[in-house]
């Protein structure tokens, strides 16, 4: 068993105050990081036994707390975002798996607030499955990863406008219809023949 208190302590030693806080216990531990230290922290954790990247996802906190207000529920829910510009929170979920016994030694979630839309460094070099996960986060939330300027969408198509899991993306928004990018796909040989020829009425015999 990996104790998350010790993990947090060793993170504090290596990245200093960028390891902000530790919440929860056991497999539900959540460590909050500063965005700049995400890559070194994950690298450190990978070195200390967290060998599987289970998941990476984001949450858009821009409308947080409005659900309770909408229905007049008597609960005040403060938005946890530390600053106005911080809107997205990323969650990296790591697992330490003993490949021999198949037992889980530890689980931890690392979270960071994203400054604007510019996310932390990509962790593709640590875990190859981060490639698709980061593409999905870009696709759905429009959060870029610092060293992946040319990132491609994953689930949606290239011409899709906007990022649908942002809270300001309306659920009933229609996307423009897309066709072929240019005329190359049309068959030029038959194009003229297929179009009905319009003859002005007065010229009809």
């Amino acid at each position, binding site marked *: 068993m990996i104790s998350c208190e010790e993990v947090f302590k060793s993170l504090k030693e290596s990245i200093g105050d960028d390891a902000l806080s530790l919440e929860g216990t056991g*497999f*539900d531990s959540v460590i909050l990081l500063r965005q700049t230290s995400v890559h070194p922290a994950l690298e450190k954790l990978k070195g200390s036994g967290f*060998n*599987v*990247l*289970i*998941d990476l*996802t984001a*949450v*858009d906190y821009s409308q*947080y*707390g*409005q*659900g*309770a207000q*909408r*229905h*007049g*529920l008597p*609960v005040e*829910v403060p938005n946890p975002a530390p600053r106005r510009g911080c809107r997205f929170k990323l*969650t990296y*979920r790591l697992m330490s*798996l003993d*490949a021999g*016994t*198949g*037992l*889980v030694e530890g689980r931890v*979630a690392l979270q960071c607030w994203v400054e604007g839309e510019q996310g932390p460094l990509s962790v593709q070099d640590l*875990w*190859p*499955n981060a*490639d*698709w996960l980061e593409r999905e986060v870009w696709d*759905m939330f429009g959060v870029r990863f610092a060293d992946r300027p040319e990132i491609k*969408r*994953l*689930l*949606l*198509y290239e011409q899709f406008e906007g990022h*649908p*899991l942002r809270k300001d*993306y309306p*659920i009933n928004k229609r996307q423009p219809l897309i066709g072929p990018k240019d005329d190359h796909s049309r068959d030029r040989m038959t194009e003229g023949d297929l179009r009905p020829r319009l003859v002005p009425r007065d010229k009809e015999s």
Partner: protein
Amino acid sequence: MTKHGTSAPRELRSYLLNMGPAHPAMHGVIRLLLELEGEKVAEAEAEIGYLHRAFEKHAENEPWNNVVPWTDRLNYVSPLINNVGYCLAVEKLAGLALPERCRYLRVIACEISRVTDHLTCVGASAMELGAFTVFLYMMKAREQLYQMIDRLTGARVTTSYTRVGGVKSDLPAGFQEQLLEIFGDIRRTLGEVEGLLSKNRIFVDRMAGVGVLSREDALAYGVTGPMLRSAGVPYDVRRAQPYLVYDRLEFEVPVGSTGDNFDRYLVRLAEMEQSLRIVEQCFRQMPPGPHSLSDQELIEGGVMADRGKRGETGTLWSAAAQVDATLEGSGRGCHSQVVAPKADFTLPSKEEAYGSIEGLMRHFEVVMWGRGVIPPAGEAYFAVEGGNGELGFHVVSDGGDRPYRVRVRPPCFFNMALLPKLIAGGMVADIVATFGSINMIAGELDR
């Protein structure tokens, strides 16, 4: 090149081939971009998203319980596991403790679903290699189970069996006997299939040594489930982090040794037998009692108060006070349970809802907007063992009547991310075998 092929050495050129999105062997829609050198795959890339139906966005716009029907459409060959996984995540967030019988019912539902999932996978991948008989045998067995699921939930595929805090209903009359009888048929089918395939020269030649997945790759890509187990890592969420009642049940975690397609076939075959064992044990262990939280033990208000005064509070937390509609005779401590806006999370049984005014009121209290299930603000992650591996639900609540965010960790997303690596360097014909054995379900892959 001249007619007799004597001069000019042939130029070896690679070319691109699209496999899918509409291809008979691509069950589900997915596009594989292959760079071929003759018949060999030099490079491969997978393009996904053709079945994206915005599950996660939809979930943010529905009350907590109404997300359950959407989860049916994630992994549509084992929908019950999705139902259970989602509800467990919400219950973890809300801090609900389920009644015993409900846990067993959910385990039974999950394991029946796991068998249907594996039957589909093995049957379909055998069919793609030409073994059509196996496909028909397995589909017949699956259909028998689907009919039992139909009896249990009212639908073959769109089950929506669970509710936050319980399940829709208890087992119908005669369910246990009928299911155990069907298990006999399924065991016979599995035996027949094993006889048809496991030593079949054609099948073994196509499967063994093809699509070999190393342990290191599997861990690096976050692969779980039968695919990871076939590579020799006995990781099973049911064993590593037991949920529901899996810690009381005896079952084995079958593992492979080489991580090739044939091992994946063997692992799935062995797992089905284990699932049948689990269901049989559940029937033996299952206690009588309520199937949902709101149907929990009702203690008469006065009696409850007396017990509390005597200090016998051990079981009181899980019970509800039965009080008169006028609250006569109830202690002050019980008022909160009766008049609180969040008194109930789960719907009353249909008999109660249609048969009494209190039941009807409780029903409306749950289904009206802004009422019913309202977990406290916060987030929770819960992982269950799906048909393909670790199926995780990450739910975030902002104290509203609908989820602030629902994230699904689909197990076959990670298998698919690995697929290009598995097929690169092999033959085009082997893609079909490898793709079949990773059991991609587009519904959960694209969400």
